[in-house]
């Protein structure tokens, strides 16, 4: 198992400069494999805690590659947005930590998943959508010049004017009407 961690930055600029040099050297030299130095726990107050070297830090999970590699490379960040640890693979964690981690990962990576497009209409400056998602019915708007983005891993993602994301996993399996609507905007 390989786990890469990044220490939080120190206050002093001088120390930061020397630390950059250390990190560069560490990257160049392979690190010995360690078993597990990181443990994750969901506290009773709802926080996600990362335990490491006797220290506990409340963290949140950020997917580094939410579309290309959504289940790997997750950055655990503290309340000041400093990286506490980088989890490359969930299987690198102990079973309980993995369970907690995967739950948090799912929450962090949550998007609405579209299974049917009822209608799509161009209004002034926005496009009005009516869709059925796995999570329920939804109406939303996208800008006229903003198009669904095709993902290298397959499927499309649509971003609405509020920043919410709508994922279409398998467009070819949708009904004819949905495919027709999508055809105009994607592919």
């Amino acid at each position, binding site marked *: 198992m390989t786990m890469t961690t990044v220490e939080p930055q120190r206050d002093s600029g001088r120390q930061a400069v020397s630390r950059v040099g250390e990190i560069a050297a560490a990257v160049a030299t392979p690190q010995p494999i360690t078993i597990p130095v990181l443990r994750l726990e969901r506290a*009773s107050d709802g*926080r996600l805690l990362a335990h490491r070297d006797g220290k506990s830090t409340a963290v949140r999970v950020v997917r580094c590659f939410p579309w290309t590699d959504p289940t790997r490379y997750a950055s655990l960040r503290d309340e000041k947005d400093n990286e506490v640890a980088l989890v490359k693979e969930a299987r690198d964690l102990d079973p309980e930590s993995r369970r907690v981690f995967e739950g948090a990962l799912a*929450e*962090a990576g949550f998007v609405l998943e579209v299974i049917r497009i009822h209608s799509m209409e161009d209004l002034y*400056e926005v496009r009005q959508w009516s869709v059925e998602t796995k999570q329920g019915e939804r109406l939303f708007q996208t*800008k006229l010049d903003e198009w669904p983005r095709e993902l290298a891993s397959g499927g499309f993602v649509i971003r609405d004017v509020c*920043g*919410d994301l709508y994922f279409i996993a398998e467009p070819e399996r949708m009904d004819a009407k949905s495919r027709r609507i999508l055809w105009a905007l994607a592919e």
Partner: protein
Amino acid sequence: MKPESSFEKMLGQPLKLPEEVRARIERELVEPVVFYALADLDASMRLTRTWVAMSAKTVALAEESLAPVRVFKREQIKAVVRAPGLSCTTLTLQAAPGEPALAVLRYTHRQRRAFENLQFLIEQQLKNLELAPSDPDQNYADAVTHPVKEAQASVSANKLAVIWRLTSYLKPYRRRLALGMFGAFLMSLIALIPPYLTGRLMDEVLRPFEAGSLTQEAALHLGWILVAGVAAVLVVREFFVWLRLRMLATLGELVAGDIRRELYEHLQTLSLSYFSSKRTGSLISRVTSDTDRLWEFLAFGIVEVILAAVTLLGLGVVLVCLDWRLGLMMALPVPVLFTAIYLHGESMKELFLRTWRKWSAVGDVLSDTIPGIKVVKAFNQEEQEKQRFGTRSDAFTNECNNIHASWTLFWPILMLCIHLLLVGVWFFGMPRVLSGGVEGVAPLSAGTFVSFLLYAGMFFYPIEVVGQVARMMNRAVSSAHRIFEVLDAKPDIVDIPQAVRLEPLKGRVTFENVTFSYDGLRPVLKGVNFEVREGEMIGLAGPSGAGKTTVTNLIARFNDATGGQILIDGVPLKNLDSGHYRRQVGMVLQDPHLFHGTVLENIRYGCPGATLDQVMEASRAANAHDFVCKLPYGYETMVGERGHTLSGGERQRVSIARALLTDPRILILDEATSSVDTETERKIQEALDRLVKGRTVFAIAHRLSTLKRANRIFVVEDGRIAEQGTHAELLEKEDGIYRKLHRMQQELHEMYAV
């Protein structure tokens, strides 16, 4: 303005706490609701509606189902933790450490602003700073509709209302419009005469002559009269064509010009906050291409539609009058043809969307690589970029060809159908012409038949026009909508009637308990008090986001204070004539903008009447004269966009010369010496030293060394003046903010100094 119910329909959710939910909540809270938000995801990440409402002392969570309302005291909340995700944010309201969370709220980004406001209120409460939001319904509605309103114009989406408003711009040109319409109508009516005369020629000259009932002389006489009539009608018709084109083409230009001018003038009245919320390109295209589209619609679109409708109606009447059987045969299929055109238009929409998308993709490559050509070449990616562009260009070409394939198939088929109608006319008409009045067959003269055929041939053009009009109208209405959005925007700064002009303006600036907020909830300035004497130089220091630029924006009256007041020479700033006042306020910004024009025009920008001597004097004082003389055409070298490129330091010095020339009483310097080398900084600093003499100056600088000359320094932190004093006094303060900032900068300087 678009009614809120339209937004409710668009979003598919209420914009206000439903009354029955409010009643249930207030029964539990025993107090009125002062703030609320909607958590639209449940624990299993399904869409739901859980209202989170706060009163002065309590928080309530209520689902829209009849599940019991959960209630807890606000004082139980010890911390708020937000964990944003891709499309779900989790907000945890934490109790004392070790205790279970009071509430875990999950919501999509649509609810983000409302929950950010909620979090802010709770955090203020945790700092013992209570805030009293004024209108919870308005706060929630504004928070949820904000992104949609930003994306879409708030004018009425009613197409007819937009067209009606557009036609109101025709009022100043009633005479021209009347003449143009008159010409258009007569042109259409007169076009109906030649086929009739042709029929008369057949029936009353050619056939009688052939039958021998008319002599050659009489036939020629009558024939020449009819031919002369046709010729005269054609000449008169072309006169009316000219009248229509001349009046309406110029009318379109005049109206488009009026709108363009009104739009630009209105833009000049709008506040800075409007411009920061819109893309520059979008505003520019409204003034240029959107008004241009309106010209086309006003000059031709409206009239063509009316004429086409009138022509079709007239033709229908004439045909039915000539022969009701054949007339109905021509007229009845017309609605079917229109329906076919409409359906074809609908089916083309998807093709147009795809084409637009592919064209955007082509444009994306260009807007990436042309400005970034240096990077392309540095990384030797020319071939890859050619391939990328080629792929997208080919995709666009394919889509265009799909469109051409569609319309080039549809229109010939449509025309074939119309021509088949004509064939039908021949099929049913010819036997009647040849029957010669046989019993049981309705007779039809050859002349009438010929007239009929000529009239039927006039059907094509109006049908084609009506077919095109839907698209033209949609585009024009869309452009009008975008234009009216700007025209309906209200400026934030409005002068009072009889605004005061201070002559002379001395430059004494007083802030009395000034507060300011951009969004009406989060104060950026919190009770700022100071008095600055005329001629004093004030340095503004502090961390980013502290409120320094907000102070200077308020002094320049780009915004009005939301609380307290600002006085200039003892007169409330809100009572001053803003245009007259701003002419006496000069600004030198970090990134000075030079307009497209000569150096001379740029220096003279605030003072167009300045003489060349005055310009040169200002230029020398700004240390700009020497480099200007080295430019290809001296002061008459074109600079700005598409002009000669000046370095950052050179632009800064032209900007200082511009400020010097206006001789402002109050001067605002915003990071004026950042981003330049040492030698240039020295020159700029010298120029600034000359500029600030005898004026009231507010200078913002992150590099504190540049503020040493200030009479006093205000250290702004978290919207307040945390410290004030001279540079030396502030450095002596143990644990002072200024001292800490100064020390950090020194350390950084020492670390990276060569």
